[in-house]
């Protein structure tokens, strides 16, 4: 009986210590982690889309509540025009493929896209991120139109599934953009 109690006590103490330590660390690193994610994941993709921005798109951002999820929108100014960018994802070969889609709000056309996170095969699917030619195909495509492999996007050779994932992420972005356009325009006034 005594051993039983000892087991319970030891396990309880260990578990609660473990929980406490983790909760503290989680709490204290949360903010830093969010910053890291912004800077290191979305940041490069956003900066690659808005190379010529006159402001700092990562800093100038707002968020809109879309059916329960919080979406971050990044605002860039290029040649006096306002652009926005936000992240969507599509189902790839090795998991979700994250995609930042930059949209020119004046023309409703895609300004550029950039892959953020992915776990695609190195050398095949990973080209979606590494090969600028693939991303460049999206520039100028109408955000409303269906964005599919074959037309107007040519698939990466040997990585059909990844190409599909990127296209479906872009299509999703189009739907979200259409749905939230009034709210986006309202928020954009603040950055004029």
């Amino acid at each position: 009986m005594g051993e039983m109690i000892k087991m319970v006590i030891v396990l309880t103490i260990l578990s609660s210590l473990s929980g406490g330590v983790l909760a503290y660390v989680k709490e204290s690193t949360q903010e830093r982690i969010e910053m890291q994610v912004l800077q290191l994941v979305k940041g490069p993709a956003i900066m690659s889309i808005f190379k010529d921005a006159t402001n700092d798109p990562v800093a100038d951002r707002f968020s809109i509540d879309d059916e329960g999820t919080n979406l971050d929108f990044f605002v860039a100014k290029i040649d006096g025009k306002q652009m926005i960018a936000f992240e969507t994802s599509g189902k790839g070969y090795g998991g979700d493929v994250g995609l930042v889609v930059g949209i020119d709000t004046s023309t409703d056309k895609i300004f550029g896209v950039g892959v953020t996170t992915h776990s695609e095969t190195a050398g095949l699917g990973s080209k979606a991120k590494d090969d600028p030619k693939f991303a460049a195909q999206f520039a100028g495509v109408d955000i409303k139109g269906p964005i599919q492999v074959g037309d107007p996007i040519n698939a990466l050779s040997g990585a059909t599934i990844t190409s599909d994932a990127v296209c479906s992420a872009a299509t999703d972005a189009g739907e979200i953009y259409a749905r939230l356009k009034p709210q986006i325009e309202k928020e954009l006034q603040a950055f004029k």
Partner: protein
Amino acid sequence: MAKSITHEFMKGLWEEVPPFRLVLGLCPTLGVTTKMQFGIGMGLATTFVLVCANILVSMLRKVVPAKVRIACFIIIIATFVTLVELLMQAFAYPLFLQLGIFIPLIVVNCIVLGRAEAFASKNGLMLSIADGLGIGIGFTMSLAALGALREILGAGTITLWEGIELVNLVNLFPGFQPFQFMVQAPGAFICLGIMLCFMNMVGNR
């Protein structure tokens, strides 16, 4: 046999180097070694967990009842792994992105649990630290070596840390075409096989 701290530390570097001699911990060994830097990162994370877990297990070895010792070890290890994961996200986020699922998987790495069960739960604090450190560094070196081999063959570079390239064959020889097969999953098996073969050849002398 009197156990010396130096001996416990040194054995992990050659005699019992985990992936090649004990053939343990193969999942991360095969999974993350596409670049040397990932191998080093993974090795350091594992070393951290290994040393911390060894310290705690060794300290608590008299307190923990035998029947629930595995459960206790797992709690201890899992705590440190989650800690490493959070810290990595906060301070080495790009590495965390690359290592991905393999960081949480350190929990089930048989090296960590194996050292806790086989060594730390039976030995004193200093010996356990030495053991954890030795095995951890051996593991890191093995992963780094495998990563370097795969990277130099498969990508033509050797990356010590993000942005620090030791060798870049593509720059040295403009016509160099890396053997990309080696950075893919089957290449990992072949490289590991070749390294095991050489380890055995050298070891059997």
